[in-house]
């Protein structure tokens, strides 16, 4: 598959997206070869030769128009096939979200990414939230990312996951994915967000589920320790 050749996809729906791209690719290349072939063939075959006159063909009668309308009907059939394939894939990626195992809040701003996890209580906004520089997720599980922006429109694009979603300031948009392969994958902001748009790089770290849990517990513990140290420091100064 064409996109797979360039960059392998590692989510549960990347194959579906790649399949649509590939279907269009095969049809596009096929039509191009036929049409370009005809252009070249006709140009050569019907070049001006002495004593040979062009034919007076207007394309006004149905018999002659058929030569155009039948291929057009064929093109329509191809189009409808593409529509059908695309509809299902779109529904999967952008339609009703499957229930999440992990939810992360993603804050995009000029020109960096911040990822917020719930604290020990499992809830957001209770003061125990973890703010991370990389998006850690478990492999093989559904992850929801709640996308928000502090300033302008950004875009959360993870090429390897085949996931792309614009982020609008003033709204929270939830996207989902299920990464199949552990590894580190890049996030590239894909909506012009200012002069340093090119530098708005992020990372998705996909771990085996046990490793993810270990990481999360460690981060929470470290945060709790730091909070305690801060409180005692203030008490000490009080």
């Amino acid at each position, binding site marked *: 598959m064409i996109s797979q050749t360039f960059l392998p996809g590692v989510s549960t729906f990347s194959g579906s997206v790649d399949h649509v791209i590939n279907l269009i690719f095969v049809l596009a290349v096929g039509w191009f070869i036929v049409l370009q072939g005809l252009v070249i063939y006709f140009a050569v075959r019907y070049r001006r030769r002495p004593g040979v006159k062009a*034919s007076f063909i207007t394309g006004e009668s149905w018999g002659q128009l058929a030569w155009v309308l039948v291929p057009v009907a064929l093109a329509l059939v191809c189009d409808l096939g593409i529509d059908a394939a695309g509809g299902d894939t779109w529904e999967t990626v952008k339609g009703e979200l499957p229930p999440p195992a992990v939810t992360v809040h993603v804050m995009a701003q000029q020109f960096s990414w911040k990822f917020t996890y719930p604290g020990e209580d499992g809830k957001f906004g209770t003061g125990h939230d973890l703010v991370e520089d990389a998006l850690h997720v478990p492999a093989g599980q559904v992850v929801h990312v709640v996308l928000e922006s502090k300033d302008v429109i950004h875009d959360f694009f993870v090429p390897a996951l085949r996931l792309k979603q614009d982020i609008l300031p003033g709204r929270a948009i939830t996207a989902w994915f299920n990464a199949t392969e552990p590894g580190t994958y890049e996030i590239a902001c894909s909506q012009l967000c200012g002069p340093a748009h090119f530098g708005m790089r992020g990372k998705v770290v996909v771990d085996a589920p046990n490793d993810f849990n270990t990481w999360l517990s460690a981060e929470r513990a470290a945060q709790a320790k730091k909070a305690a140290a801060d409180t005692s420091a203030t008490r000490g100064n009080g």
Partner: protein
Amino acid sequence: MEADIAIHANAPAIETDSLVSLPASRVALWIFLAGEIMIFGGLVACFMLYRIAAGGWTDEASHVDWQVGTINTVVLLTSSLTMILALAAVRRNDQQAVKRFLAVTVALGIAFLGVKAFEYHGHIVEGFTPSKGMFWSFYYTMTGLHALHVTGGIVVNSILLIMAIKGTLWARGETRLEIAGLYWHFVDVVWILLFPLLYLSLEAK
């Protein structure tokens, strides 16, 4: 392959069928108005969609005085009437009447702008500036753009009035007044659309 000769034999040199049998200036003006309709239409459509989505903006809208709006509506409608009367006058070659009705039209147009300025002043003094929120952003933009078009119409009508006074209007007076009248009626129609949208809203509960 058989060639279709029949349709390519000589056709008699017939009169061209004009798509519409209107003088060029009127065709042009209707095309111009089509473009203007898309500009105002775009603004109005956005206003309506966002107003519905936001739940009506009844609070904000209650600060717009429907009585003042009604006065302006009457002023503008009357000015359309006087414009029609000016056109009727030019058709029966009543030059004095033309000047009279044109002058009244211009005066009413200026009155409209005056009332608008009075309104804007009142709003701003109360703190309802364009930056106060979506309703006010739309209000100032829609009425402001309309007022700009009213100003344009006043300029055109004033030029025609001056031409009438100097005596240079009459060569193509009917066409000119027709075109200017069409434009002025369009400006009026836009206001008739804006008036209920901006001024007549449900009472805040």
